[in-house]
């Protein structure tokens, strides 16, 4: 079942087309990464599904129903920046979130503050928080009442490496408990570590979407090296079948059609050409590589 169905959504700001006929589904229980370069429309898309922006065309369905305030109450969200009353404490800000959404009790407010390590500063004004602390409070607000769906726009913004790792663990833990997480991020390494599904946007258009493994694994990648790299490169030009070669510093990358990489055959081929390999590795394509390919960056 789809938690969110996006159908033909378009949005423009004057002459700038921010989103163009965007359609895809987000399955229940996944960690769904919305990726794209700056200006690709990620935040615009999240703003539309949270009813902050109005789409020019198209519609979306949460749990099979048109978006409404009652559905938003069931969704924990962090959009773009932590938005809180600067003169209120963490507890009072979360009380407002709780009053509006109906999510969380007084006890749960303290629990989520403990979870994001803000309990000691719970009575400090929001304006006195560092960027990382503000981000933690926004995550606490999203977690309030343990919502089944989380929408997180750049959730690790402003966090230190330890904070980033903690949020990653938290997302994995929540996903294991059955929560659906929709996140937009620039940190492809982070996305790769936690996302089960992705959608890649470019200039407001959907480039690709699906299971992370399906999106990434469109070809096999093998990395090899030998004492004499020039001889290796020359030899591999005559390797039978469809193959693309990419020379790197002291490695040669072979790109072969999906499912056709045979490490034994490659090793044997090189040996038959008088070359002894000192490195032979089947590599999973990195999301970063795929992202650059798709977005031509």
């Amino acid at each position, binding site marked *: 079942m789809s938690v969110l169905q996006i159908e033909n959504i378009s949005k423009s700001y004057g002459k700038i087309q921010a989103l163009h006929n965007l359609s895809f589904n987000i399955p229940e229980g996944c960690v769904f990464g919305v990726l794209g370069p700056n200006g690709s429309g990620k935040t615009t898309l999240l703003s539309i599904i949270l*009813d902050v922006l109005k789409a020019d065309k198209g519609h979306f369905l949460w749990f099979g129903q048109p978006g409404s*305030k009652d559905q938003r109450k069931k969704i924990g969200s962090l959009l773009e*920046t932590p938005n809180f009353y600067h*003169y209120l404490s963490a507890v009072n800000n979360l009380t407002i979130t709780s009053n509006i959404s109906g999510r969380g009790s007084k006890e749960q407010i303290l629990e989520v503050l403990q979870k994001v390590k803000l309990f000691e500063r719970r009575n400090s004004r929001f304006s006195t928080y560092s960027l990382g602390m503000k981000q933690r409070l926004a995550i606490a607000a999203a977690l309030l009442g343990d919502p089944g769906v989380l929408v997180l726009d750049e959730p690790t913004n402003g966090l230190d490496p330890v904070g980033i790792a903690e949020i990653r663990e938290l997302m994995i833990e929540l996903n294991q408990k059955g929560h659906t997480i929709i996140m937009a991020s620039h940190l492809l390494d982070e996305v790769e570590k936690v996302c089960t599904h992705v959608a890649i946007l470019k200039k407001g258009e959907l480039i690709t979407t699906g299971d992370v493994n399906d999106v990434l694994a469109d070809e096999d990648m093998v990395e090899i090296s030998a004492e004499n790299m020039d001889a290796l490169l020359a030899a591999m030009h005559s390797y039978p079948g469809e193959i693309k070669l990419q020379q790197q510093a002291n490695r040669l990358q072979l790109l072969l059609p999906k499912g056709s990489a045979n490490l034994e055959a490659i090793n044997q081929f090189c040996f038959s050409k008088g070359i002894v390999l000192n490195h032979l590795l089947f590599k999973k394509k990195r999301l970063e590589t795929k992202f650059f390919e798709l977005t031509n960056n």
Partner: protein
Amino acid sequence: MLQIIKTEWLKIRNYPAFWWVMGITALTYPSINSILLYQYYDLVQQKSAAGQVVKALLGNPFAFPETWKTVAYFSSLFVFIPAIVIIMLITNEYTFKTNRQNIIDGWSRREFMTGKLIDVVILSAIVTLLYAVIATIIGTLNTTKAGADKWGMAYYIGLFALQTFSQLSIAFTIGLLVRKSFVALAIFAFYFLMLEPIAVNFLRIRFHTEIGRFFPLNVSHKLIPRPAFFGRIDEKAYQESLEAVKYHIGYTLILVVLTWAFCFWVNNRRDL
């Protein structure tokens, strides 16, 4: 509704600027009335013939029941002070993007705007309460005549409340449209203190038209006519201003409805 009131009160009661401005208002309203009261006593306590003429001319505008109108009139000239809080409360929502967070968290746009309407109602109620307390104190201290009709003109509490609510609603609308606190404050102050008074008088003197009484602030300004002693100067104009009150109640109610309908419409239409 109760949940919206609770949430808005939580936002207001912890906002330091609210208490600062309320403190300034609480000092300004009694101060301005006290200054005028002392000036009045300075004049009428003179033993000279001029002093006695003034006493006969003015009566006692600070005794019951006239005090309800006198204090309302002078207090209403300082509505721009509570207007600062109203403008700050709405522009803060835009500055810190908490308006969009309220929507994301599950309020509808209508509920958000209802919350802001409640803010203006709460502030109008506080300011009216302050006015009523000051008028009661001044009236009690200055009424010497036995059997004075203490509550005879207490309906000015309602008129003051309506005027305050209407004028704070105009301030709110400017904040909603402009979204930047200092620009909105400057526009409201300029309009309240300069533009509308000049425009109204210019139209009256230059073109002999009273169209200015339908200007946004003047519509409700006419709810509270000048104190009775002005009638001694121009009796006809004073009687006309009293006569106009009942019409301006209707005009003000219409303006208030239109103002809030416009605010709800704007908030519903635009991206956050």
